[in-house]
């Protein structure tokens, strides 16, 4: 019984950032972390560091696509600062540009999921299109603060 409680507590603690992300700043940071993890799978695949796995690739593209859903809502007014946010003020001053950048990422990842590449060459075509979104969006809408 004691163990069960302890384990449940431990599990809750480990899972808590996901379950109770709290502030929008933290939520969007977690979302971006999930994208980074998915990118790890894709980039290592592209580099040939891991063997081609169509299912893993599809899952990673899907994770990225999921991240774009409701993503712009995680940047409400009043969350321009705090919680080590690296969000650029441009997200609020150029909302249309920001939203269309997120839409583009949504479309490119959705196309990649639909394409369901079965080999490395087909994958690289989709990967190239998807990966470009990272730097394009971060060029304009992220500011490094430390």
């Amino acid at each position, binding site marked *: 019984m004691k163990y069960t409680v302890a384990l449940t507590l431990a599990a809750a603690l480990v899972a808590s950032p996901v379950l109770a992300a709290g502030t929008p700043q933290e939520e969007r940071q977690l979302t971006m972390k999930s994208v*980074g993890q998915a990118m790890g799978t894709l980039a290592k695949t592209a580099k040939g560091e891991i063997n081609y796995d169509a299912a893993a690739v599809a899952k990673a593209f899907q994770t990225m696509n999921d991240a774009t859903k409701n993503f712009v809502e995680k940047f409400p007014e009043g969350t321009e600062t705090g919680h080590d946010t690296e969000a650029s003020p441009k997200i609020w001053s150029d909302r249309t540009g920001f939203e269309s950048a997120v839409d583009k990422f949504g479309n490119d990842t959705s196309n990649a999921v639909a394409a369901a590449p079965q080999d490395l060459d087909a994958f690289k075509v989709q990967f190239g299109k998807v990966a470009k979104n990272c730097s394009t969006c971060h060029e304009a809408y992220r500011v490094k603060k430390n």
Partner: protein
Amino acid sequence: MIRRIFITAVLLAIVAAVAAWFLSAPTTLSQTAFADLPDADLARGEEMFWAGGCNSCHAAPGAKGDEKLVMAGGLALKSDFGDFYAPNISPDKDAGLGNWSFSDFANSMKMGVGRDGEHLYPAFPYTSYTRMDMQDLNDLWAYMKTLPASSNVAPAHELGFPFNIRRAVGLWKRLYLKSGSVVRFASSDEAIQRGQYLVEGPGHCGECHTPRSLIGGLKLDVWLSGAKNPDGEGVIPNITPGGGLKSWSAGDIAYYLESGFTPDFDSVGGSMVSVQANMAKLPAADREAIAAYLKAIPAHGNGY
């Protein structure tokens, strides 16, 4: 007595003004610098173009794809000293450098002096380009002449007093225009040397990654330790082994320059996006050389 003090003060002021005038005079390269240059090599010139990242500032703001080869100018750099506008450096005869000779170009890059003999402001990073080889400059100049001409007229700089006194840049150069290497290495590893040339010279990495003094000179004793963003919000990271790169391998750094991804698969952002896109066009050996150099330089705490 008062009269004598007054006369002395006026004389001293005149002497100081005359000295400042002479000390601030623009100087240009001697003719010997141009002796024995081999014929220009366009392929090497293109490599210097990517290493130098000319297009990061001189392409039209927001340029994409092939537009990045049109050096139309117009990008604003909003600094603490005022607003600088990148000029048109395309081969257009009226709006660009179409009437410049190689000597004019070399003097701008190595001495910070424009075609009319005027000082150029160091928003144009000649404090780094001054370390470039004449042969590389000759190749780069030949390549730049092959790029499309643009008739865009870039706005003039908007600087407040005293920064609008162009002649004063001559005094600034006496403090900060240095052509020697920044870092001294005990070994003579070839990759590190190549990396040193690329980083300290054409790549002009120090211009953003090194903190500056109150009058905008690079603090070379804390080289590449990171700095306040000279052109807006946020910071430019410390890229010495004392900063965030501590845990990166040389391979990680080279991969970042090639792909734009950090070891955690976070991506390049801000003004580094354009720099990285240019670095990706260099031969792999050059990115590896930059990585070797960055792993070998002295570690510093964050400079911002």
